[in-house]
């Protein structure tokens, strides 16, 4: 039986606390991966999905708090919520800058807002079983999405190809600060799901829904940016371009994405088996955005 139970790696656990960050966007260009609009815009889709998505995580987790009866997990969830709130704010604050650069994301983000606030929001359901079912369904969906945010967090921390290409340091710091916190708290959503429900059929079902939705929204977001980029005459997004960027190391490889599927669906999966908390914590100790905010806070007192 031992290989059918999620096996947590105890040494990967760390106390969670939201960090204040600040970014100066004035000098970040539209194509912040120089000469590579496709990679830029594929990663930019994060700014479209995360503000609404992470607000939704918090909305759901506020409701799940009364179902958590483990003190340590409760503390992890409290820390998780604050980190997600700051992530949402930080990505949200990039959107006005994109607008200033001539690429207004509102037509797309208004749809993502609808997706998370209406489609996945609190439905009109009778209290009791139906409401709880919908809450558990969403808790499981968050666990599946967090599998991918942890995957992307681990990837961005190690994506040296972006440094070699001369990517904008402020944007890279936003992504790596965020990615590092995702790696740091990667077990929380899964443990919440296992604590309040943990059903394998629900895990598979919500993974399928989350993965399909992510692929649909992501390709749509990349196409939206490529087609509306004021500096591109005939911007097109294609799977071929995605695969090529993966080979160059400026985006995750197609193979790594495919391999992440059986890993989440394995009965012995636990998020602590992948990624490195030590690497994440080390980045966070040096992240310019976190240091800048810290200097501002201590400066005021």
């Amino acid at each position, binding site marked *: 039986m031992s290989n059918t139970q999620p096996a947590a790696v105890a040494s990967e656990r760390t106390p969670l606390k939201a960090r204040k960050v600040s970014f*100066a966007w004035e000098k970040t260009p539209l194509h912040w991966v120089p000469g590579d609009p496709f990679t830029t815009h594929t990663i930019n889709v994060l700014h479209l999905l995360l503000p609404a998505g992470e607000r939704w995580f918090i909305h759901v987790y506020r409701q799940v708090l009364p179902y958590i009866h483990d003190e340590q997990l409760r503390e992890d969830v409290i820390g998780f919520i604050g980190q997600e709130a700051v992530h949402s*704010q930080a990505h949200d*604050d990039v959107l006005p800058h994109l607008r*200033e650069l001539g690429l207004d994301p509102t037509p797309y983000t208004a749809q993502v807002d609808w997706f998370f606030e209406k489609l996945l929001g609190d439905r009109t359901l009778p209290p009791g079983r139906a409401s709880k079912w919908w809450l558990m369904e969403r808790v499981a969906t968050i666990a599946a999405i967090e599998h991918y945010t942890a995957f992307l967090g681990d990837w961005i921390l190690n994506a040296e190809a972006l440094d070699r290409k001369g990517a904008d340091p402020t944007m890279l710091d936003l992504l790596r600060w965020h990615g590092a916190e995702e790696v740091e708290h990667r077990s929380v959503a899964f443990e919440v799901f296992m604590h309040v429900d943990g059903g394998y059929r629900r895990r598979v079902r919500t993974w399928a829904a989350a993965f399909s939705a992510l692929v649909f929204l992501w390709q749509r977001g990349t196409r939206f940016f490529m087609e509306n980029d004021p500096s591109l005459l005939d911007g097109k997004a294609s799977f071929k371009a995605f695969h090529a960027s993966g080979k160059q190391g400026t985006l995750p490889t197609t193979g790594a994405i495919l391999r992440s599927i059986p890993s989440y669906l394995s009965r012995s999966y636990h998020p602590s088996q992948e990624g490195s908390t030590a690497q994440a914590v080390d980045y966070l100790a040096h992240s310019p955005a976190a240091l800048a905010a810290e200097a501002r806070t201590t400066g005021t007192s």
Partner: protein
Amino acid sequence: MALPRLRTVVLVSGAALLTRRALKRRIARSPLWPMPALAEPVSGHSRRRPTTIRRLLITERVPIADGVVQLRLEGAQLPRWQPGAHLDLVLPSGLVRQYSLCGDPDDPGTYTVATRLVEGGRGGSREVHEQLQEGEEIEVRGPRNRFPLVEAEAYVFVAGGIGITPVLPMLRSLAARGADWRLLYGGRSRRSMPFLDEIEKLGAEDGRVTVVAQDEAGHPDTAAVLADIAPGTAVYCCGPEPLMDAVTAALPEGCTLHLERFSAASTDVADSGAFEVELHRSGRTVQVAAGQSVLAAVRAELPHVAYSCEQGFCGTCQQRVLEGEIDHRDELLTDDERGDSMLICVSRCRGGRLVLDL
């Protein structure tokens, strides 16, 4: 047999081709079809922008009265503001000081502030006067407005010295729309009072402006200016504490009072008194001790209340306030949000009692 099968294949593939063409045309017409959009977009439209640093270029630094310099700060796409708003300047030493905006609210590229050098002050004004030079950049936060111009039948302003700065844009706006206003403007000497010329021009007709320089005529008579005002008049005062106390004492019945105080915003929970918080929906009341946060007191009664950073930046613990005067100590919420909600981890109560929608 062969014929109907062929016909089916042709029909099905024809239908498929037509559907594909229709979909392509539909998407070409509106590329984001078929997902609906939220009627009022949220993402990217927040007025909070808590993680963004805004640095402005100091393009002009001019003395405009004895001991008063005016700074012109330029940047791109600056947030709009309303008369009465102030800006936080993050000074080179890390000190944060608040200065009222005294330029044109409709100028999207410029903020103007004026500061007086305070002898023996807490160092902020000295730093502005001695260290900020043209061509340098300075970090700003805001603007925020705790001193908004409300709709009223008539207005009386009492300004002391540099306290004229938030009032000036109000006067311009009221003069432009022909409202009924009066101003009592006091200062040490005419040479030390900024914007005198402009103000006297604004109030040239009907003697709307009374200027009282201490070296010529002593202290301004606040009681006299407030004595015969009509009910429904909005009274605005900004200046030294004794002046604001005098105006508060002389305020006639039926008039509203609006004060602008520039105290350093305290974020220290230890530096605060006790008060009572009623949790309206739960029907309970908790006591918040001096030095204790509202959150800590509420958690004792409602263990599942959401919170996280406990420092006023993540926003998780925001709660609706039904009654009571809030002492906001966070940097996150917008002026609108501050009207009826608070972050219970850091913000407190100015009076003795708050009612939360919990």
